[in-house]
């Protein structure tokens, strides 16, 4: 294949020549031998140099700018992934795994160029064991796709981060969601992983095909890779824990006069042993935004959105207990509903929150913060954060998974206003440090990605950092696996 050297190609070659003299990534991806080797593995259709394809694979749903890879490959099996990895390893080419591109921290930006492994063609539900409540899926299977596949079985996978993300991608970012308070996050629900390492070896973190509900065997490699954001290996299969679909669902809404009252209610509901499925908090700014966006008339004050799962009788008890608790905390307008349409109407504000926030300032972009603190510290951090927002003239309605102590400021900023972007950046740093000071974490569910590497160091401390660096060096001595993410390496 002869390639006409257009502007992009010249730029790429220049960049690679630059690399040759200044960086460790030695071989140009555009050497014919490498490209034809990729084609031999993935087929002629399985390798793309097209600009549009590369750009599509160089960005996610975060505010980080697009950093396209040099080439995108589309393997169809773990054997192909392994062969591609071996090839990249011998040519010192960075490897960036790509699921659905729905991440929020720039995890797929190819900051050092390299090869994007787009895993969307590996889309089999490999192994479902209904009686054991487990299923194994490939990276192309998304969570909505899996739940659709399971719809006749009475089972579901409840981790719900909002987007229709790849399940292996969710494992890679340790995703969570609105019903983590009852069903847990990916950390609690991944039983086993098949991972292709930087040198092409295929690892089964809990042993090939194994899926016991619990184990005490050896080091917990499965959870080492959960949340590793593509920096330790390419996840090619994940074995997940499934749950029974709830028999019945009730949704409820309740307003409060203060954040403290709303959070106190949350803590007491949890302490009362109510197995609440979702408990979401929206602040007054968010409620106002939702009223405007969806033409609703909620009271403009801190509001809790609750969802209960259970049997018909169990639900009555759950809702009754929760209602009493909210009333004892000066909650008002407690409304609840069971049929699907009414439930959707009640929760409309929560569902539209992202869009309602953006609609506050048309033409602006929305950026979501993601800190998590122990639940008892939530009132303090929210109050301080709201004061910070006002002081720094930032638009930031708040929505949070209050049962986990996790909340998001949906900051709406003008992408062309550098001064505002600077204020945003300083604000998010202050917020993260505020959370760290309250025994929390700088990222509850979105991951470290590109933007929080420095905060990670502050969060875990030097001893843990050294250990993480050591693990990275052991698994990926050449720093080929998604370079520039999670860890700041000394040589960068």
């Amino acid at each position, binding site marked *: 294949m002869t390639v006409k050297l257009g502007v992009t190609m010249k730029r790429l070659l220049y960049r690679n020549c630059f690399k040759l003299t200044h960086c460790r990534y030695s071989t140009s991806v555009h050497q014919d031998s490498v490209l034809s080797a990729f084609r031999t593995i993935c087929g002629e259709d399985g390798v793309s140099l097209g600009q549009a394809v590369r750009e599509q694979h160089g960005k996610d749903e975060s505010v980080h700018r697009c950093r396209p890879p040099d080439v995108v490959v589309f393997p169809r099996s773990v054997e192909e992934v392994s062969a591609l990895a071996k090839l990249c390893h011998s040519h010192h080419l960075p490897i960036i795994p790509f699921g659905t591109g729905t991440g929020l921290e720039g995890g797929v930006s190819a900051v050092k160029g390299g090869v994007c492994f787009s895993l969307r063609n590996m889309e089999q539900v490999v192994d479902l064991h209904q009686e054991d409540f487990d299923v194994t899926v490939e990276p192309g299977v998304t969570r909505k*796709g899996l739940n659709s*596949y399971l*719809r*006749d079985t*009475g089972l579901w996978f409840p981790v719900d981060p909002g987007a229709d993300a790849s399940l292996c991608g969710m494992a890679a970012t340790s995703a969570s969601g609105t019903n983590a308070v009852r069903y847990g996050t990916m950390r609690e629900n991944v039983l086993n992983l098949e991972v292709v390492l930087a040198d092409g070896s295929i690892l089964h973190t809990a042993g090939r095909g194994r899926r016991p509900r619990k184990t005490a065997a050896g080091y917990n490699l499965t959870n080492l890779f959960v949340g590793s954001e593509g920096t330790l290996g390419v996840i090619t299969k994940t074995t997940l824990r499934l749950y*029974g679909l709830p028999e019945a669902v009730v949704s409820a809404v309740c307003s409060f006069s203060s954040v403290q009252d709303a959070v106190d209610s949350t803590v007491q509901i949890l302490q009362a042993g109510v197995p609440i499925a979702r408990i979401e908090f929206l602040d007054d700014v968010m409620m106002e935004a939702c009223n405007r966006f969806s033409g609703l008339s909620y009271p403009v004050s801190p509001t809790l959105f609750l969802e209960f799962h259970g*049997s018909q009788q169990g639900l009555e008890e759950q809702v009754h207990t929760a209602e009493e608790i909210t009333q004892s905390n000066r909650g008002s307008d407690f409304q609840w509903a069971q049929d699907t349409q009414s439930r959707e109407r009640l929760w409309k504000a929560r569902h539209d929150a992202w869009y309602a926030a953006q609609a506050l300032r048309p033409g602006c972009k929305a950026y979501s913060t993601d800190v998590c603190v122990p639940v008892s510290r939530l009132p303090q951090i929210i109050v301080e954060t709201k004061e910070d927002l006002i002081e720094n003239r930032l638009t930031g309605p708040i929505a949070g998974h209050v049962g986990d102590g996790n909340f998001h400021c949906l900051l709406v900023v003008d992408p062309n206003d550098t001064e505002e972007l600077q204020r945003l950046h300083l604000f998010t740093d202050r917020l993260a440090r505020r959370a760290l000071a309250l025994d929390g974490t700088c990222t509850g569910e979105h991951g470290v990605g590109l933007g929080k590497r420095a905060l990670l160091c502050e969060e875990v401390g030097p001893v843990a950092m050294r250990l993480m660096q050591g693990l990275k060096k052991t698994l990926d001595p050449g720093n080929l696996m998604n370079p520039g993410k999670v860890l700041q390496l000394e040589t960068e």
Partner: protein
Amino acid sequence: MSGRVLVGVKRVIDYAVKIRVKPDNSGVVTDGVKHSMNPFCEIAVEEAVKLKEKKLVKEVVAVSCGPQQVQETIRTALAMGADRGIHVEVSGKDYESLGPLQVSKIMAALAKKEEAQLLILGKQAIDDDCNQTGQMTAALLDWPQGTFASEVTVEGEKLKVVREIDGGLETIKINLPAVLTADLRLNTPRYATLPNIMKAKKKKITQVKPSDLGVDLTSRLQVLRVDEPPQRQAGVKVETVDDLVSKLRECGRI
């Protein structure tokens, strides 16, 4: 209205599966491929169960025609709330050539035998897209039909049906007994939950042969061949309007 509802459910290849044509072009690959209840049949079952929950009907009976595997589909209907099932055994060549004409004869016979007041079907199946069974059954029974139903209300011994038509919505009133076919917006089918799946295992499925119902399964149709849609051809980019015009002339478009 306080009688029995019959719901037809068809086992089809799951909507999410990528269909492949057999190498001999005689049909599509079905071996080892995930099958599930036709989505419009799910909507039909949901509507029937809703009527029972509102105490407007006494019993919901799910019917399917085919080999042993269709019992899975009937079980799903039972898990959604149907009371019992009827499996009309059709297998082998008869099953391969089974189409709306034969199914409608079977449904008509069963509707009479079971003294049903209402028959609800999906508007069409996602494999053959025929959209004929409901209409043919109504004709055989000489019952009124409310097809493409997006809303159904019981008004005494009549049904008010809002139908989705090309121009918008049409509201009709039909006498019972009647045949309805369910359109997409009629309702959102419930998922079967584990406890209901457990309960469904105990519900009864009776087996019936088409000959018991006096139905002749001979098909009037013969499938000659099945082909994939033509591969999409790559487009061509041109630099100028003149190039565009000459290219359009070349391929006879202008």
